[in-house]
């Protein structure tokens, strides 16, 4: 018998990963600043403040090729340069920890596992652009993360890594937490800043961009938690180190929250350029119960579904956009043959419709109308013209919406239409749901294996099943609510779902 593996690091799950942003998560005690220091914590800050000018810090980040990990992929160094160029004695650094995508928990894990790295990175950003105040905008639904970050801030202040004249330099920087109430739109940068200002979280028109006119009208750098987590290692190891990882235009690593129909659900950090197949089959350990892979959803409600024929595409910002999806903040949901793609699109549209802030009409009304089309399709009431009209509406919403929420809301519909159009057509033309998910299109039928045990008849919550003992039963589809209880409890496989 082969020796049993005792160590997480030796599993297939870990072997293909490359940890940068998550390097300390699960290793150190997040509530002990000394342990962070043991793993080279605050060395990057010391180096920046004593050896580098703000411009040199910005140049290092620019040279490294780091791009925003929140999903947009804007070059971080360029953003910092815009803010540094602004002549203003008040500037701000903000961190977007308002992780809103359903199923995504990358930022939460970094905050809970390594909060000091965020503090260090934001203090460095403050030095680089000339800001004295930083805000972390974090969801109130993350109580553990908030608590650990607050403890970390208190410890950093005690050690003088936050406050006045850090390491004896002229740099002063303070950090405060602002709690968000969980509105999805507040993950959009302008809405986030409006919320920090104390107003209702609604986006505003860009330009002017935050780097020019951001929080309280002052130049502001706003980055995602994972982006900040990359800053200290880049300063310590140099721009070339990050450049050595990834693809031509996307450098470094990306954290994904791997979920859905996959054996190893979890948090994975991979080098850019790793293929989806590696992530799903090797790190993720494949799909449970021998089912067939159907699609991978990236980018949450703003992203799209990537079908099996594109599994070998190296993951980076530009490749995912070319496929009609996007990197997003890092949700990666795997779907198998039992998932209905129209239903998936409906799920995400239901989410964006609820979360639309209502400020601009294309998003507020457009997502509502889009959801109505999808409901019509899943109920078997749509026509082929509806499909075309729906596709046109998607383009209007994309073009006319004010912020990223509306501009990307149609993506789940467009990408499923692109790759799984036949599934939409099956709903419309044949009134069937190939995956057997859309309830209105399903029927339950008793087959000849039925021995008349009456179990289903007794369990049916709406008395839709009739039949005498030891005789084949019958399901009245007029009464049936398609709950599937009869099929689940039948010991003779005598009920078919069609």
């Amino acid at each position, binding site marked *: 018998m082969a020796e049993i593996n*005792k*160590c997480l690091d030796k599993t297939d799950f870990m072997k293909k990963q490359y940890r940068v942003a998550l390097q300390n998560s699960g290793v150190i005690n997040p509530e002990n600043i000394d342990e962070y*220091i043991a793993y080279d914590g605050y060395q990057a800050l010391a180096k920046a403040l004593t050896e580098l000018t703000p411009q040199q810090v910005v140049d290092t980040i620019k040279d490294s090729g780091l791009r925003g990990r929140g999903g947009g992929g804007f070059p971080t160094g360029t953003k910092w340069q815009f803010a540094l160029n602004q002549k203003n004695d008040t500037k701000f650094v903000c961190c977007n920890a308002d992780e809103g995508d359903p199923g995504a928990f990358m930022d939460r894990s970094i905050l809970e*596992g390594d909060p000091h790295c965020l503090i260090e990175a934001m203090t460095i950003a403050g030095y680089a652009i000339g800001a004295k105040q930083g805000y972390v905008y974090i969801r109130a639904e993350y109580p553990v993360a908030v608590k650990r970050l607050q403890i970390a801030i208190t410890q950093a202040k005690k050690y003088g890594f936050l406050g006045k004249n850090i*390491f004896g330099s002229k740099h002063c920087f303070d950090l405060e937490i602002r709690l968000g109430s969980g509105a999805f739109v507040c993950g959009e940068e302008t809405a986030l800043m409006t919320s920090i200002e104390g107003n209702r979280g609604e986006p505003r028109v860009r330009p002017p961009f935050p780097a020019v006119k951001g929080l309280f009208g002052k130049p502001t750098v706003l980055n995602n938690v994972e982006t900040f987590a990359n800053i200290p290692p880049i300063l310590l190891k140099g721009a070339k180190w990050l450049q050595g990882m990834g693809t031509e235009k996307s450098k470094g690593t990306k954290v994904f929250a791997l979920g859905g129909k996959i054996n190893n659900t979890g948090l994975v950090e991979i080098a850019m350029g790793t293929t989806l197949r590696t992530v799903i089959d090797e790190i993720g350990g494949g799909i449970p119960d021998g089912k067939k892979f159907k699609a991978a959803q990236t980018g949450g409600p703003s992203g799209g579904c990537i079908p099996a024929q594109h599994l070998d595409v190296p993951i980076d910002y530009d490749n995912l956009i070319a496929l009609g999806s996007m990197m997003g903040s890092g949700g990666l949901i795997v779907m198998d043959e039992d998932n209905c793609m129209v239903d998936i699109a409906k799920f995400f549209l239901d989410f964006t419709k609820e979360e639309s802030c209502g400020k601009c009409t294309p998003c507020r009304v457009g997502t509502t109308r889009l959801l109505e089309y999808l409901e019509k399709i899943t109920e078997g009431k749509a026509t082929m013209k509806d499909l075309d009209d729906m596709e046109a509406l998607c383009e209007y919403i994309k073009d006319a919406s004010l912020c990223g929420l509306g501009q990307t809301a149609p993506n789940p519909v467009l990408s499923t239409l692109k790759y799984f159009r036949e599934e939409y057509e099956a709903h419309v033309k044949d009134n069937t749901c190939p995956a057997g998910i859309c309830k209105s299109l399903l029927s339950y039928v008793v087959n000849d294996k039925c021995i008349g045990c009456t179990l289903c008849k007794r369990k049916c919550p709406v008395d839709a099943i009739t039949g005498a003992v030891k005789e084949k039963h019958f399901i009245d589809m007029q009464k049936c609510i398609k709950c599937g209880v009869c099929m689940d409890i039948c010991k003779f496989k005598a009920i078919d779902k069609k």
Partner: protein
Amino acid sequence: MKTIQELNDIRKQMRAELNLDGKTNSNIRVTVGLATCGIAAGAEPVFKAFQKEVKRLGLTNVKIIQSGCLGMCKHEPMVEVTEAGKEKVTYIALAADSAKRIAEEHLAGGKPVMDFVIGNE
């Protein structure tokens, strides 16, 4: 306020304590994954059970540490045992009552409990 010299001193001292400096000490470190995911899976009772067992056995060289997410949701609660010169041992899907066996056989006895290790899922 700390100076860079003080920062480096803390680093050196902590690296020795955590066995990162190449020299070795006899400290055993037990890290319990206590991020939201771990807590939801029941890692807090496991953490407390380890603290209790280590105290009961009087193991002064063992430190029970709370940590962040170890990454593998399906195996939570997860616990890792690190010791100088030995391969790290990862225990998975632990319940509070498994702490007693691990404390007695592994932390005190030096023999990993193979029933709970990651390769034995």
